[in-house]
């Protein structure tokens, strides 16, 4: 096998890894820049989003802190945050790392990554809000774009400081 032949799969792996990482970063930046209205567009029409306390995951219990089974439910969450809910004024900061592609199929990918969320209050004080793990099924759409088919955020910080308003 020539060097070029050996490099070909590696190159496509790197490209895929790059594409996935860029996608996850864009999602995080969307939340950090308070573009909540764009957040549902990262998901497929049929989708699942859930923030699952790790203690429930360990016990095999299904209850999420927050969940949505359709893109419409994600939109309702955004509308409620914008117009109805009262919560702690803050800037969120999502840090995504340890991105691993666990399975690669022609139409979907299984990806895990770590997430850390900091909150900064209106006086500029920052606290650690949450650490957790994204468990994603990413759908590969025509033209190569990625959409979230399913995202479960398993949170280690299941003793939630005050409340959880902005999605993770």
């Amino acid at each position, binding site marked *: 096998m020539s060097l070029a032949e050996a490099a070909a799969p590696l190159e496509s792996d790197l490209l895929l890894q790059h594409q996935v990482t860029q996608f996850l970063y864009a999602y995080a930046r969307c939340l950090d820049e308070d573009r909540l209205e764009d957040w549902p567009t990262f998901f497929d029409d049929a989708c699942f989003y859930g923030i699952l306390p790790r203690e429930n995951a360990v016990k095999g219990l299904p209850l999420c802190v927050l*969940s949505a089974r359709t893109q419409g*439910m994600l939109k309702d969450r955004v509308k409620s945050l914008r117009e109805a809910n*009262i919560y702690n004024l803050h800037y969120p900061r999502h840090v995504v790392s340890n991105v691993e592609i666990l399975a690669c199929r022609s139409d979907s990918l299984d990806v895990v990554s770590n997430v850390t969320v900091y909150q900064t209050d209106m006086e500029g004080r920052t606290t650690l809000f949450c650490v957790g793990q994204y468990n994603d099924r990413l759908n590969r759409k025509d033209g190569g774009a990625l959409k979230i088919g399913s995202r479960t955020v398993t949170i280690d910080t299941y003793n939630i400081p005050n409340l959880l308003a902005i999605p993770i």
Partner: protein
Amino acid sequence: MNAIADIDWPSSDFTRVPYRVFVDPEIYKLEQERIFRGPIWAYLGLEAEVPNPGDYKTTFVGDTPMVLQRTMDGELAAFENRCAHRGAIVRREPFGNDTEHRCVYHQWCYDLKGALTGVPFRRGVQGKGGYPKDFDLSKHPMRPMRVATYNGVIFGTFSDATPPLKTFLGTSICAYLDRLFHKPVKVLGYLRQDIKSNWKLYTENVKDPYHAGLLHLFHATFGLYRSTQKGAVLMSESKFNSVLYNIGGNYDKDLAEENYKNQKKYVPTDYDLYDPQLLASRPDFPDGIANMIMCIAPTVVVQQIMNTMATRNIRPKGPGQFELFWTYFGFADDDEELTQIRLTQANLIGPSGYISMEDSEATEMVQDNAVVRSTGDTVIEMGGRGEIHDLDYLISEMPIRGFWSHYAKLMAEPPALQEAAE
């Protein structure tokens, strides 16, 4: 008597509450002794959480760590999670199943009722050391609690002076516990909130129907406002415990507009969810009650909001902090669709709840100010002054005054007997 913690109540009908009660560490300490370890029944859990012999759950009563245990003969027991030797936490896991409890520090061993059954090197090693001849294992249990259940809800008390459980709960509370726990339940999961405010600010919040339609604007925003509908406030004979409920009904847009006309935030719209599945409901009860918030002071709130059912265990962690521990459940015979409805509607409650996330934010805002200036009093007059009684309407703060009236009584009691005997 502890003069430092004596509370000066500005009014005999509890229309005023000194801010000091939310921040003073002496008052906090006295509450642990006179209320949480005093003549009250504290929530420990649900029988469904410890169904099998050997099952245990660790929990708290006030800030005291506890073990709730199902013994080998199927009985329930509860004891302080504290080694009688030199005080280590004995059970560190949130849940488990075992035939004994063994302290990791020096391996003192206890049975499932918390009685000491063995200590290592009791006779010493090769004739040297060991415990004195008259050392009596039976004198060193983990501190036990009396346990009683009501329809599968488990309570415990440290005091011998506590009235029978049904008397403590009160007639109205028993009636609504009968309604909710009319068949076996199953746990669907847990939620926890770490709230930086005094536990009593939350107790006030769940006895405060005044705020419901004003702080929580989810229903109004999505055209589901129903605060004009029928409801009631019921209290235990002691006034310590309460039930608030309202009957679901059709949305009355005209009435909502009228009631909210001076409120900037409320813009009446038509029923307006992108995905109405969130509120798709299969009523569990024939009485039409959409919303039922019960407070069994000082340790637990029991709620039913549409198809959501949960207990909320209040676990104080100091004057300015408590954990709110939610146990979310359905009925054991729920089908798959009903379970799915409950899991979807869970979005209404908990730390991200559409109609509950505001509560901890509100109590933290009050706490922040009480810390800065703890002089002066709150004002609790909605619904009137004077006598505290049940109501057939909701816009009122009367159950809050009911809570304080019994709180004041408990705090004025001298230490309970078993405390003095130790």
